[in-house]
């Protein structure tokens, strides 16, 4: 089970310092310094880094729980990315620096290489929050394997773009950059990094879905049409009940992936299938759920001043990152088919 103090701390910080206005301001380029500092001061940014490497040394599940809360808050900071970066560095025994980080690459066909001269080569697209990161944790090919490398962001060539959520999503060239530290990644490969990213995104999505359910129910209770709250109309009730089902399924699927990783590590087929299930199911819930929430909110939910879009736009972004439903479904489908029909049920019940 998770450490409730960590989760409570995160919840309190977001309640205090992650107002809708802060989130919109971040989209305009204003770095939410107070929020980030509070997270950092409370040790939440290096949750997955062991004590001896400068981190909080918390359990895997604690980190995922923090990300659930962050997703619920639509936190406009690279908390997930910094957590992942710290984790990646820790795999190689590299100490994690302070400050925001991101990871590279985010695609399984990524092609960053670490040369014998200690210099990096390659380019990575769609790196979340690259422009605000102080460091990038890179998983680079080296010889026949992979190394984790810590790179200062300052000297990198960054082409800025934005995700659908309005958050930084940048293309970064690593050509000629020198790693501050670089060590073999202890068996980790790009597929595992992407898998880990997918699991992380499912937690954030599960949180965002909880948020839009809350908002939609509240709106349905408050908004009066035809002389009564719209939540009294059967059609609205049934839609929100369906939304609740999607939220519940997403939370459950995301937790399954997190628990699998906590128990069995990031490598291996068994974990891969848990993550696949989660990314598929949560991705579907994100689409269905956002549509229902918007329908319930009417025109108000389509405005920039209402905060619904802060969650729905992130859902639409996150479902696509680290492999969308289709990509994971193909992979999972092949895995299941390869084992044969009679292994379906054992497959479903494996691990429990």
């Amino acid at each position: 089970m998770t450490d409730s103090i960590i989760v409570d701390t995160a919840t309190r910080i977001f309640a205090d310092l992650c107002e809708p206005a802060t989130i919109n301001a971040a989209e305009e380029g204003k770095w939410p310094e107070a929020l980030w500092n509070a997270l950092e001061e409370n040790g939440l940014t290096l949750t997955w880094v062991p004590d001896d490497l400068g981190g909080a040394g918390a359990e895997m599940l604690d980190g995922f729980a923090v990300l659930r809360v962050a997703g619920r808050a639509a936190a406009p900071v690279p908390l997930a990315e910094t957590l992942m970066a710290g984790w990646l560095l820790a795999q190689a025994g590299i100490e994690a620096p302070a400050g925001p980080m991101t990871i590279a690459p985010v695609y399984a066909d990524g092609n960053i290489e670490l040369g014998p001269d200690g210099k990096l080569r390659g380019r990575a697209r769609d790196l979340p929050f690259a422009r605000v990161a102080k460091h990038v944790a890179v998983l680079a090919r080296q010889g026949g394997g992979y190394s984790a490398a810590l790179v200062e962001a300052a000297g990198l060539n960054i082409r800025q773009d934005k995700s659908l959520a309005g958050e930084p999503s940048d293309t970064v060239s690593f050509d000629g950059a020198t790693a501050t530290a670089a060590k073999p990644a202890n068996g980790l490969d790009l597929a595992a990094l992407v898998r880990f990213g997918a699991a992380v995104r499912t937690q954030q999505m599960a949180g965002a879905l909880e948020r839009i359910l809350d908002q939609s129910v509240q709106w349905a209770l408050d908004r009066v049409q035809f002389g009564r709250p719209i939540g009294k109309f059967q059609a609205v009730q049934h839609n929100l009940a369906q939304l609740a089902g999607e939220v519940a399924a997403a939370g459950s699927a995301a937790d399954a992936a997190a628990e699998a990783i906590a128990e069995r590590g990031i490598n291996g087929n068994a974990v891969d299938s848990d993550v696949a299930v989660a990314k598929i199911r949560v991705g579907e819930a994100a689409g269905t759920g956002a549509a229902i929430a918007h329908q319930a909110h009417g025109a108000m939910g389509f405005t920039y001043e209402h905060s619904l879009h802060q969650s729905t736009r992130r859902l639409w972004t996150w479902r696509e990152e680290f492999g969308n439903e289709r990509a994971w479904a193909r992979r999972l489908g092949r895995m299941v088919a390869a084992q044969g029909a009679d292994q379906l049920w054992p497959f479903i019940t494996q691990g429990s």
Partner: protein
Amino acid sequence: MAYNFHFDPVELPAEAKELRQEVRSFLKAEIAAGSFDPHTGRASNEQARAFARKVGARGWIGMTWPKPYGHGRSHLERYVVTEEMLAYHAPTRHYSTADRQSGPVILRYGQEPIKQEMLPRIASGELCFCIGLSEPNSGSDVFAASTRATKTDGGWLVNGRKIWTSNAHNADYMIALLRTSPPTKENRRHGLTQFLIACKSKGITIRPIINQTGGHDFNEIFFDDVFVPDLHLIGEVDMAWKQATDELAYERSGPDRWTETLSVFTEFLRTAGPEPDDRTAEGIGREVAHLATLRRMSLSVAGMLQAGKTPAVEAAVVKDLGTNWEQALPNQVRLMAPERGDSTPESNDDRFEQALRHMTLIAPKLTIQGGTREVLRGIIARGLGLR
């Protein structure tokens, strides 16, 4: 916060994992012995009865009931047994209703002599139960029931009609919801009482209702001055609305709510082979993601029951998601299947074709039986604070 229901993670205890292997071995032996068809679940009534006795002998009926009525085991162990039986299409119909619903009602609200008499006989696999709930004018609205029980010397006289009673033609007993008083102005649910009724009682006529698959599961039951002894009164007179519904609603989330069409998917996997094309792989992956998630949620409810929680809304969520998924499954599979033509090898895919047809035919009932989609969404909406 609207979102105030939860699906706790569950770690199955070691004994449950061992039990799973035990059940699988048992089923393997039964399949080998020809006790039922492992692909369709087909078994004769005699086979189903014999199977119930064997399952009873293993101690797998009434598992969670305290001793001496049952076996005092955990909800998680019971869950494992149930899902293994369903996954391998074991013919549980002789005992499943009693195990899932009737037994727990008797255990909780029955009079002591009845508990002592009935529960061990259920747990042994001997008795088959059915549930007398729906009436011609009372389907989703169970509290509109009008079949009445009138007090008489030493018992009650029952008159009226029940409908959609599954398996009544094979059942020994029924637990029926009967009208003992009119509803009150303040409480339209007042005035109904639960009774245990022997199906072979004088005055009972059972008429089969053939369904659109051509099969016979439902029945219409006519009561003509049927005598029910006082001892068979279950719970308080007129107060059935306080009993039953909520506590037992957890059973909504059992694996029977998302496995009913699963065999069409399994058979499809068999025809699809180990290296499906992209389209097929994508389709398979999507269904597996839903299935695995439903199963986790369903198991989670069992775990919460074991922990003494009352996950009523969670159970409704699982049933709503589960029945919608299993209802849609045959059509999803249909659209993955290769096109049939004159050059398709004969009977290559015959078992799959049969499963697809059968599941297409039964799919409509899945979001109706045991609480319609509309009723479930109403329960969830209430859980959200909207009603």
